[in-house]
């Protein structure tokens, strides 16, 4: 333990002068807390979306007209089934139903309950549903957001939809979907496929799009090419495309946040520079004394470096812990609205705790490098103090 007297001295000095450090640690905490929360939320949502995506079908085939998606004919399904390597071709019927003066909308999803579902996410949600009961009348399963919305608008047991043909259709509320699927199911209404067609005003031989799986990953590009060649107005979306779109969206949100955060960091650096210049100039006598006692410039630099590192590490650990508590224990009130963007129905999502090396190292780098850089020059200035001058 050659260096232990040095660390002992460092600790003594640190606790004796703790009032000087508390200010800096407090500012650091605020900054780390904000940054940490934002990155934690964005990564947690990204993680949940990726989890959900794992259940999604590999391909979605749509029909386009003038760049807009239109309903596809059911005849396409038979053509798709003939391609080798394709499995689980599922027609999907869904659409938005606008509620009351178009303020809010529900996502209506028609499910063919007789068929095996290719979409595992939907199947998981409906796991505990008693299908026999459900299929007896016109029933629907709704997401939590929909359920609250209906209740506050005095439809506790069901809702009367107005179909495009001008006919009213009364549908009973059968059950509310489990809360853990809220990220996708919040504004969702699940009904049998024929009922969905009726509500959305689609013909018997029409579907919104067709989902299909290709179990062999290596064949994805081939299959996509083959399907695209079937019709001129076909549009194929792969799971990778969706993944990339999500990645871009959350990079965008996190990135804009970070760019705005750069301004904060610059201000922080200026404050630190000022503050440390002041703090250290009041320490001139102290350093001068150490130098007179035989400390070299390197020793003083070392002392100040460890002092700074202690502040950085303490602030980092506390700040990240606070952000963790705020996001994953308290559920990040207010801040998560930026990331979820609940313009439609209010959503309450449980943020799944995700901590990875990438985020922690990003937070550390963006905080520690500007911090230490700002302190370097004041530290040097004080370290080269001439003992004689300082004692005067």
């Amino acid at each position, binding site marked *: 333990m050659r260096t232990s007297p040095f660390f002992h001295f460092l600790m003594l000095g640190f606790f004796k002068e703790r009032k000087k450090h508390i200010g800096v640690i407090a500012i650091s905490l605020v900054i780390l807390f904000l940054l940490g929360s934002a990155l934690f939320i964005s990564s947690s949502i990204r993680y949940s979306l990726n989890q959900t995506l794992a259940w999604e079908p590999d391909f979605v085939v749509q029909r386009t007209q003038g760049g807009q998606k239109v309903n596809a004919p059911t005849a396409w399904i038979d053509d798709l089934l003939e391609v080798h390597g394709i499995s689980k071709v599922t027609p999907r019927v869904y659409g938005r139903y606008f509620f009351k003066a178009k303020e809010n909308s529900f996502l209506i999803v028609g499910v063919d309950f007789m068929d095996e579902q290719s979409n595992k996410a939907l199947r998981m949600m409906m796991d505990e549903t008693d299908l026999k009961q459900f299929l007896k009348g016109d029933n629907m399963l709704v997401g939590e957001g929909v359920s609250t919305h209906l209740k506050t608008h005095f439809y506790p047991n069901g809702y009367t939809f107005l179909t495009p043909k001008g006919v009213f259709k009364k549908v009973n509320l059968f059950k509310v979907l489990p809360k853990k699927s809220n990220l996708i199911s919040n504004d969702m209404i699940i009904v049998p496929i024929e009922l969905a067609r009726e509500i959305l005003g689609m013909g018997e031989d029409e579907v919104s799009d067709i989902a299909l799986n290709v179990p062999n990953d290596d064949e994805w590009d081939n299959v996509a090419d083959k399907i695209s060649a079937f019709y001129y107005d076909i549009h194929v979306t792969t799971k990778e495309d969706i993944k990339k779109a999500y990645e871009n969206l959350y990079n965008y949100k996190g*990135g804009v946040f*970070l760019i705005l955060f750069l301004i904060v*960091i610059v201000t922080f650096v200026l404050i630190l520079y000022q503050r440390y210049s002041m703090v250290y100039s009041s320490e001139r006598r102290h350093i001068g004394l150490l130098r007179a006692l035989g400390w070299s*410039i390197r020793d003083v630099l070392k002392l100040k470096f460890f002092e700074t590192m202690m502040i950085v590490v303490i602030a980092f650990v506390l700040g990240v812990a606070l952000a963790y508590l705020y996001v994953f224990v308290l559920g990040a009130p207010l801040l998560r609205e930026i990331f979820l963007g609940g313009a439609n129905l209010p959503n309450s999502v449980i943020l799944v705790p995700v901590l990875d090396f*990438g985020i922690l190292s990003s937070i550390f*780098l963006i905080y520690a490098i500007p911090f230490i*850089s700002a302190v370097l020059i004041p*530290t*040097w200035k004080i370290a080269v103090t001439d003992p004689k001058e300082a004692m005067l």
Partner: protein
Amino acid sequence: MNEILLSNQVLVYLLSESILFGLLLIAFVITFGILLKWDFGSYSEQQFLLERRAYLTMTILLFVFVVKFLLLVYFVFAIDSLSLLVPGAMCAAGVISANDYGMLLLFLKLVILFFLLLWMALNSYDLRAKNYPIFRLKSWLFIAIFFIISIELGLNFAYFSHIDTLEPVNCCSTLYGQLEGANPLPFGLNIMTLLLLFYLIYIVVMGAMLSKQRVLSVLATLLFVMIAYYSVVYFFGTYIYELPTHNCPFCMLQVEYYYVGYLVWGTLFVGAYLGIVSSIMEIGLKEERKKEQTSALILLSIFVLLCTAYVAIYYLRNGVFL
């Protein structure tokens, strides 16, 4: 809107590099001023001022060295995470070859780290000698490093702002693997002779370091880095991936392989750098540098053992070679 520049990791990385460059610029201006007026024999006020300023350069460079090292790891990590955004890329190999700047940038980073390490070694010698015998040498070295880092900073921005997210890139198996029969190895080697060379040169490096043949050890280490690179990509890597056709230096940095790539490349480069720097110091300054030599030997041996272990474990488990 450029999606790459909005990626969190890229933003943090570019910010960190820019801050470091700012500090280095200060150090550069100071060093230049010092070099113009440095005269250790003088007792003037100005000479004392210069000596104090030299400490600032030293502090900045020490900081830069540590952070540059961390940032190299972070850089590799960042481009690895970009592989989702760049079509066709499955690991960092595709992303780094997305434009012409990438490979050059990575190479420059390795060069810079080497020179920074050399500078640190020179500096510690210089300080211990009390009368700054090689002050000018190390200052000129710093000025050279500064120019390389300036180029690197430019490359950083050029690289990240020119990654096209619509243009597909090659994945690692097309970059390193399917060469349609062409031999990717240098000097017309095949795998057998490559491996033979790998172990032979390793023994030469060990021998040269232990018997203090400095010039030989520098040359052998340089050759070893090159041969080791090819051996890992074309032979040992296949055992890490447990797939005979998978030749890639980057995929092993991913979580699927327990980030073992960081250990593989880390031990190789740090070991080689320490070995070369300490040998150069011993040639140039006639000074014993036992500690660095020993650490270099240990790191390189860990590297060789690690690579061999992958092959051995695979063989023990499956009873065949790939």
